């Protein structure tokens, strides 16, 4: 398996009482709750954790993009990536991903990734996403065009990387008279592109297309959903007439390892529960603004919601039960992860070993234990 150490960079000093006076830790949460002195320390801790992951033997270290939120302090993840390039030697650096529909000139994304690829001499992995629905509130971009803008921006970026310039790009949303990257990317024809997703069928079909074959990562979902979506991808590849490679499939999950199951639960609880209930939880109309998902899938989501009723807090036990998080002794974690690997044939595991309010010392021990007690057994 290929192991990725992924970070969201949450703002841990958040006053949770104040947080719950607002709709979400996104968009409308007053930024007077952000203390720059504490925030600067957070960046330092988190970058140290990512750098240390190379020493621990991870194949990839990874960051991503979110806007106007305490959930993740990386509105510009490429800035972090540039810093990581300077502080690491061999490890791959993944930006999974940039939210393509949110920009008005995707050439900027192509340029920045090309720069990072040159600076790192080809250690960059890129990720293309549409952003969480909240991001359409944060940026003002119309979610109705989210899919269209994503696909068009993707085409523009990949052409900018691989097609000799200058050329003109003529789209519905993006029109560029001159596309002519200086620098071109270091890797040929371009850096790898991963597609992290909550698993929409449109995205699966698009990523599995023979012209793309992009690795597909199911993010923060229960084991049933991970298996279902990865099998959907595999089936889709078959329909396209090819057998999908293990490296095309992966999933992302918060993981916590300690000596015993009991200790792991005790230590992980606050971090996990804050991640899902305080940082991530948002009202439905923010998470899924109209157009963010296709109308048919939104119709079925609405019916499911009607049956489920009001949202309540997620407990650690419930999240473990569904396999959304993996928490336990080295053996428990090994068994859980290898079972899902064997069930799906996926070769990419993206772990989040610091999550929510989990403090530095526990994040460090968790990362070390995962690297020494779990990783070697799954390789």
């Amino acid at each position: 398996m290929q192991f990725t150490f992924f970070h969201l960079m949450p703002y841990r000093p958040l006053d949770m009482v104040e947080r719950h006076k607002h709709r979400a830790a996104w968009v409308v949460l007053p930024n007077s709750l952000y203390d720059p002195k504490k925030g600067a320390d957070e960046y330092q801790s988190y970058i140290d954790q990512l750098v240390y992951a190379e020493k621990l033997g991870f194949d990839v270290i990874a960051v991503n993009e979110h806007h106007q939120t305490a959930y993740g302090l990386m509105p510009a993840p490429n800035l972090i990536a540039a810093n990581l390039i300077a502080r690491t030697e061999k490890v791959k650096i993944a930006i999974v991903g940039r939210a393509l529909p949110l920009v008005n000139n995707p050439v900027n994304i192509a340029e920045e990734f090309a720069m990072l690829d040159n600076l790192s001499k080809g250690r960059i992995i890129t990720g293309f996403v549409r952003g969480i629905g909240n991001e359409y509130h944060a940026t003002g971009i119309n979610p109705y065009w989210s899919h269209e803008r994503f696909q068009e921006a993707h085409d523009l970026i990949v052409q900018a990387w691989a097609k000799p310039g200058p050329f003109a790009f003529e789209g519905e949303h993006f029109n560029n008279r001159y596309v002519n990257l200086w620098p071109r990317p270091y890797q040929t024809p371009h850096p790898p592109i991963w597609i992290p997703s909550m698993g929409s069928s449109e995205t699966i079909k698009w990523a599995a297309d023979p012209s793309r074959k992009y690795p597909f990562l199911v993010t923060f979902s229960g084991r049933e959903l991970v298996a279902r979506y990865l099998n959907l991808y595999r089936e889709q590849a078959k329909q396209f007439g090819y057998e999908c490679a293990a490296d095309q499939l992966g999933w992302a999950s918060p993981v916590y390892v300690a000596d015993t199951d009991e200790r792991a639960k005790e230590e992980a609880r606050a971090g996990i529960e804050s991640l899902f209930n305080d940082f991530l939880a948002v009202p439905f109309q923010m998470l899924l603004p109209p157009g963010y998902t296709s109308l048919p899938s939104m119709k079925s989501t609405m019916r499911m919601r009607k049956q489920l009723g009001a949202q309540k807090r997620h407990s650690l036990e419930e999240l473990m039960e569904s396999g959304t998080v993996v928490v336990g002794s080295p053996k428990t974690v090994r068994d859980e992860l290898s079972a899902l690997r064997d069930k799906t044939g996926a070769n990419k595991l993206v772990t989040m070993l610091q999550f929510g309010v989990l403090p530095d010392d526990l994040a460090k021990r968790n990362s070390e234990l995962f690297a020494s007690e779990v990783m070697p057994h799954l390789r």
Partner: protein
Amino acid sequence: MSAITTHKVRDVTVRMRRGGSGDPLLFLHGANGLPAWLPVFDLLSQHFEVLVPEHPGFGGSDNPPWMRNIGDLAMYYLDFIEAFHYPVHLVGQSLGGWAAAELAVRNCTRLKSLSLLAPAGIRIKGLLPGDNFIWGPEESVRNLYHDQSIADRLLAMPVSDEDADLALTSRYAATKFGWEPRWFNPSLERWLHRIKVRTTIVWGKNDQLFPVEYAKRWGDGIPGSRVEIVPDCGHVPAVEKPDVTAKAIIRQYAETR
């Protein structure tokens, strides 16, 4: 009394409710679509043949892929009214008022009168509209009405899966037209003087979506227009104050005869 029909203009078929007899009155609904024949239509249908289409993309109407912005919607309705033998009395609520104004600045020759009910479409800096995309489902209903008993009644009504699907379809379409820039066209206000037809602007004094100050700005922009502020009324005068709304439209109609 009303009937549900379909109406085809060029390649687009829309669902349309119609009732009454007299001069044609075309009512353009707001962002939530229009799943029902409203009491205000019964009042109007004593004087008019009332035509209430669902906009392309809303409810049970076609959603042509070329319909991409409010200008397309306005041009569509210009085609629509040219298919009638007589000029129409045009009434638009909120998003529909925006479309009606966009139509009128382009071409008023087929209009007998224009009534704008709390129209979207322009922006006054410093007077932000409410954010009806971030409001929750209950909040959205409550914030539209001054009289909360109307909201209570609406919220207590059971919603079938089919109705929920139609509402969602309409919400998608409204998002397309109104998300960004939020509920306005930066160019529209500059051209309001092009509206050369008798115009009435009706606004609820307690509108929480578009503040009532917008009414004066519309009035100033459209030469010779009349502004009517409705007390104890939220964003939807046609629902909350059907008598006052119908009276304003009918009075203007009488003046055109």
